[in-house]
């Protein structure tokens, strides 16, 4: 057992951080957020660069043009993407690699839906991955508008770097407009939840950095506000949330198969909380600055809100985790700890 990152994994993460620093610096994020016409479509040049770097094909075999790596490596890349608030249907395109021609190379963008609801980057996508049934389906669309089959209406997206449509229905199979592809939809949904959690994790650690940096540099009452315990303790709790989420997300990336569902639910739940609550606390540490458009904090908070509703909501994760407990309870072995405390007490009551 060595839970730590291998040297190769560290190098992969550093490579991704370097790529994003060069191709997607903060000024780029800010200019996207300020686009006069609303959230723009993904930058095709950057998308292609990601494709060339292996971001989408990462888990395909080398024979299929991939790097033959696994979910732990994918998680590290998505964590970096979340840290930089890289926009675009990254998860869906990554999952579509090998299923939709061009996805692996970054030559097209693919969005995805597992139910009616918000769909990101729908108008610019070449395909929609439909994961509402047993088998995954692909809906080919021509970019420029939302496909009619989805009965979607454009939303004025709260996340100003992610265009959103609200989809009212998915085409029912066997609707001829969507073709079945050889992939298990529930597996893809679990992976989508995990990779979304990884993005939330990256954002959660980034807001810790932003809060700490602000608290060190902003002075009031003649000293940095970070010297006040009230502020220190906010920052400490932020780190605790992020570290707990990291342990859960990394471990879930190692849990394969359906039995990993509980680990992934835990990862998604804790990473969502970490991203959203850390962004809230980061905003608070920034004081009045935190409420301005100029500070980056609100971009993290809004992206966090979007991601927490995707793939597995808190309610779904919690119900899944609760049901796992019940399932375990029905398989409890007899032993010194198997008897419930209630039973013991009832027995006592009888004799009392």
């Amino acid at each position, binding site marked *: *057992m*060595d*839970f*730590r*990152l*291998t040297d190769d*994994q560290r190098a992969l993460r550093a490579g991704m951080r370097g790529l994003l620093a060069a191709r997607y610096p903060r000024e780029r994020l800010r200019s996207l957020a300020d686009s006069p016409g609303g959230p723009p479509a993904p930058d095709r040049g950057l998308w292609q660069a990601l494709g060339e770097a292996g971001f989408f094909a990462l888990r395909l075999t080398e024979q299929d043009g991939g790097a033959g790596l696994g979910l*732990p490596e994918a998680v590290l890349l998505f964590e970096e993407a979340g840290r930089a608030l890289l926009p675009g249907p990254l998860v869906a395109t990554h999952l579509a690699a090998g299923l939709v021609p061009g996805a692996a190379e970054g030559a097209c963008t693919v969005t995805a839906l597992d139910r009616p609801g918000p769909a990101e980057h729908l108008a610019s996508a070449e395909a929609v991955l439909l994961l509402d049934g047993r088998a995954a389906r692909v809906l080919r669309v021509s970019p420029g508008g939302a496909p009619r089959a989805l009965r979607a209406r454009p939303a004025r997206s709260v996340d100003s770097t992610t265009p959103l449509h609200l989809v009212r229905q998915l085409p029912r199979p066997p609707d001829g407009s969507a073709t079945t592809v050889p992939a298990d939809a529930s597996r893809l949904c679990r992976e989508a939840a995990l990779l979304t959690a990884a993005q939330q994790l990256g954002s959660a650690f980034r807001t*810790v950095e932003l809060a*700490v940096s602000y*608290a*060190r540099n902003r002075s009031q009452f003649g000293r*940095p506000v*970070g*010297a006040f*315990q009230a*502020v*220190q*303790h906010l*920052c*400490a*709790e932020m*780190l*605790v949330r992020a*570290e*707990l989420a*990291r*342990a*859960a997300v*990394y*471990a879930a990336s*190692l849990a394969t198969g359906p039995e990993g569902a*509980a680990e992934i*639910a*835990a*990862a998604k*739940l*804790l990473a969502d909380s970490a991203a959203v609550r850390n962004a809230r606390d980061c905003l608070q540490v920034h004081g009045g600055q935190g409420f301005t458009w100029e500070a980056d904090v609100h971009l993290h908070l809004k992206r966090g809100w979007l991601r927490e509703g995707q793939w597995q909501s*808190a*309610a779904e*994760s*919690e*119900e899944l*985790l*609760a049901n*796992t*407990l*019940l399932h*375990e*309870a*029905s398989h*409890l072995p007899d*032993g*010194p*700890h198997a008897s*419930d*405390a*209630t039973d*013991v*007490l009832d027995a006592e009551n009888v004799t009392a």
Partner: protein
Amino acid sequence: MDLTFTKEEEDFRDRLRTWLQDTLPRLPPEPPADDWPARRAHDCAWQRALHDAGYAGLHWPAHAGGQGATPTEYLIFIEETERAGAPYVGANFVGLLHAGPTIAAEGTAAQRARWLPPILRGDEIWCQGFSEPEAGSDLASLRTRAVRDGDSYIVTGSKIWTSHAEVADWCELLVRTDPSAPRHRGISWLALPMNAPGVTVRPLRTLAGTTEFAEVFLDEVRVPVTYRVGLENDGWRVTMVTLSYERGTAFAGEVVACRRTLTSLARTARANGRWDDPVLRRRLGRLHAEFTALWRLVQWNTCEAAHAARTGGDGAPGAGASVFKLRYSQARQELYEAAAEVLGPESLDTRHEWTAQRLSSLSYTIAAGTSQIQRNIIAERILGLPRGR
């Protein structure tokens, strides 16, 4: 990132499981919670059984009489003994996790030979004399005085929150040996024999009604200078080694236990109908996530410690242990709050194990460094925020 185990580690786990299966059914039943002499005998017998089977001081270095196991093997040991429902470390806690490792790291060969084997065999019990009525979170302000008199120290003062003081043979004691030095530089670490003249123990009753700890009064107690571990006035540094152990794997077994309690909560809630409440179900689901992640965090910290040990560090858990301690202590309290909701009115009956645990869990955010102190440590040592007051 790898959470699988080597062949050697799996073999170690299998041997341990077999031994536990053979041994646990032969153990006498657990004595009543407040019968301290009986609990001491019970805990010592368990330690002796571990010793005879070659599992005593698993994580101690070989030169201290330990097995020199890797941190991963030690974690397997904690996990398996907890899963099998083996007795807790109990009265041996201070000896095995504080005083012993301190003596192993800082003691002379003669001191190691005198004190370590009885700890490993379960022959001698240690308690901890650190906190004082006026020195809690601000431990370095401790005032118990030790004045040199020939080849002895004359020790006067009082200690508080000393667990197992009534049944302990030895106390690891922090005393002030140089009142004129800066606070951290005038402290020494002494081994105090609890039967020495001038030692008085007064049990303290906890809010749970139990007498888990005591006040210890020291009235001109004579302690040989040879009982000092480390240099005179270097006791603060000597002690810090110990304290970081306490925050490392000390709670790892409890995470396994909490996780099992959670399963029992689900079963009880299903049986008494409270499972139909989605708010309660979701609460239990979130706790499941928390304890799953806390166990992963234990594994993460263990691997960091193992790496530090391999590369020349001391293997003692670093500031990351504060992250774990802070969250675990809160999660444990939330677990037993949820248990009270599952039980309903029954939770008001203190004979219920979960009610006793709900009460005792209240100490977790205070003992071994309060949550506020842990947040200070995280803010200053990990995040690098300026020192605050």
